[in-house]
């Protein structure tokens, strides 16, 4: 299925939180939803889930306006929330029942997830007796217990140790492989790059950047070359020659030399200039911006 958000606006009082947001994503893919705190991500998610109505615009599923009672959505809220004083299985069954899942189905779904997340021994204890990481796993079970078609994960990795994080990574990869539509919001860019082909960056209630991560990166100027070497000084000296007019600037930091070319099509001439130094070079590549740098570039200084 394809989820499409069309020109959605939303205000609270005098404050316009969303200003004409449009994007779409489809089953079997994960869309990374990025934005600084207060950029409007949670509001966007709540509109998709039907908690708020949009002032303008709409949300459609396969072309028809979405009716949240006809489609199962699993939501992992950023502010974790379950009943701390209640037995875990009991409340999971309740949350499943709210989504129309029978008790037996809920229990067998939950059992599988307990096993997958390796917390089977905690099924029948009170939630507040668990560690933060384990509570988070329970929260994830609550998200997935109804076997939803759309999964919205808001900061799923915060507070998890590396072992648990990789456990969760596998689950997210399984979800995508199973053809779920995944909306993924996080400030940890490495996870976004790992799961999402597409991203969108919200800032000040508007989309400031959206599209395929690879394409976005390729869209940046490719005239900075990164060279790694054990002897950066030698290479820097060799390239700091006025006869090499195609080189704008050479600088190094640690073992990495950054060479700025006047044009990205001058790479051949750079390689020629380096031909005698080949033995000293460990690695040479075009410098691409990291997602972090892109994010900061688009959201810095304004919300």
């Amino acid at each position, binding site marked *: 299925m394809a989820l499409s958000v069309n020109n959605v606006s939303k205000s609270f009082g005098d404050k316009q939180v969303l200003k004409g947001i449009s994007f779409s994503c489809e089953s079997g893919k994960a869309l990374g939803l990025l934005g600084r705190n207060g950029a409007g991500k949670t509001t966007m998610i709540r509109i998709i889930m039907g908690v708020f109505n949009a002032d303008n615009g709409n949300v459609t599923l396969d072309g028809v306006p979405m009716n949240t009672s006809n489609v199962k959505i699993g*939501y992992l*809220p950023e502010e974790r929330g379950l*009943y701390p004083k209640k037995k875990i299985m009991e409340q999971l069954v309740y949350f499943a029942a709210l989504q129309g899942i029978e008790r037996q189905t809920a229990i067998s779904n939950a059992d599988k997830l307990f096993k997958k997340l390796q917390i089977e021994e905690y099924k029948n204890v009170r939630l507040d007796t668990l560690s933060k990481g384990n509570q988070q796993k329970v929260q994830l079970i609550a998200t997935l217990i109804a076997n939803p078609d759309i999964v919205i994960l808001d900061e799923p990795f915060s507070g998890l140790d590396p072992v648990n994080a990789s456990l969760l990574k596998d689950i997210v990869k399984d979800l995508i492989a199973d053809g779920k539509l995944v909306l993924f919001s996080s400030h940890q860019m490495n996870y976004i790059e790992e799961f999402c082909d597409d991203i969108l960056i919200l800032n000040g209630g508007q989309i400031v950047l959206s599209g395929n991560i690879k394409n976005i990166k390729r869209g940046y100027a490719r005239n900075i070359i990164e060279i790694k070497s054990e002897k950066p000084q030698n290479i820097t000296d060799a390239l700091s020659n006025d006869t090499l007019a195609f080189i704008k600037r050479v600088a190094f930091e640690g073992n990495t030399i950054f060479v700025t070319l006047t044009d990205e099509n001058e790479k051949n001439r750079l390689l020629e200039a380096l031909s005698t130094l080949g033995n000293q070079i460990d690695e040479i590549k075009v410098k691409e911006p990291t997602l972090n740098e892109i994010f900061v570039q688009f959201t810095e200084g304004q919300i």
Partner: protein
Amino acid sequence: MKQFLAVFKFEYLNFIKNKIFIFLTAAIAVIIAVIAFYPRFSSSTDISLNFGKQETPSLLVMDKANVIGLEEIIKSTLKDIDITFTTDGDENSAKLSVENKEYSSAVVITSPLEYTYIVENLGLYDTTEQNIGNILLSHYKTIELQKYGLSMEEIVDFSTLTVKANSVIVGQDQAQNFMHAYILMMVLYITVLVYGQIVAQNVANEKSSRAMELLITSADPKNLIFGKVLGTGFAGLTQMAIILVWGILCVAINKDYLIDSNMFSMFTGFSASMIIYTIVFFLLGFLLYAFLLGAMGSMASKLEDVGTLTMPVMIFLIIGFVVTISFMSSGNIDSGLIKILSYFPFTSPMAMFARISMGTATTIQAIISIVILIISIVGVGYLAVAIYRIGILMYGKPPKFNEIVRALKKK
């Protein structure tokens, strides 16, 4: 509907399984059992709740007037009191002996019709003073009448004359109903207060633990608040039913022992219609208040805010209770103000209930009041859902009244 039932069941079972709920119900059941079974195992048919051993009071009678035959008559009348009779001493020495706790109290008779009663602390139920007065008066009358040549028998016949009174109550017996109405009013007030407050607290709890984040995205707010209010209300009814059945059972088992007891009439003889009215007014009163209290609870971010937010609603309940009780006590249950209050939905569960059980409210009046109440509940229910929708996603300091109104208008 399925969703509503899921919420209803969850909230209801929450209560029934709650340890405090079970403990409270058991505690009330035990108290009822103690009251009902006490006469069976005690010699007295009346329950006088005396804690600790009570000593026989002692009384010093100092007769300075030398009344003839007084010693015998006092000793034979006040059998429960340890009496010391003397003609020596004066008021000061009597005072001193009471202060030194030689006697519980002392009476100094200065003339046949005058005496001073000396006691350290005057108890609420201390009738010694009146008794002494009565004895002195009748003894004086007897002596004086004898002077006119009347025989002792004739005097006794005269002084024990009584008027035989027969009263036929055509309408309601307010005196008999007062106790019943009072008890049921208390039950109504306390249950609405307690259960209503619990609804508000549970909503605030869900918000502060952020369970609301998941609830609101999984279920319609309408189902959430309706399920919660009705689930809690039925838990209340369950508790009342358990206690009622237990009470009837206890009384039935001990019927023979209880029949002469003062307590018996207090806790038995509730008519079936009274019980039905209690249930109807509890349910309706509870629904009205619980919807509003639930809505108020939804605006609290912390549990501490619940009290402040629910206060304006609680005030109605408290005023309704206090005014109704004071009208009941005055016996003037059909006057203007209470009539108005018995149709005003926030006070009618108590005011109309009191009028039905004590006053002369007709069935038609009761039905009108109930219909007004039901219409109000529907209105308040819708209002509560609207407030709840706004409240549950609002964090930070509780909103002011005009902010709520503005937000509601926008909807």
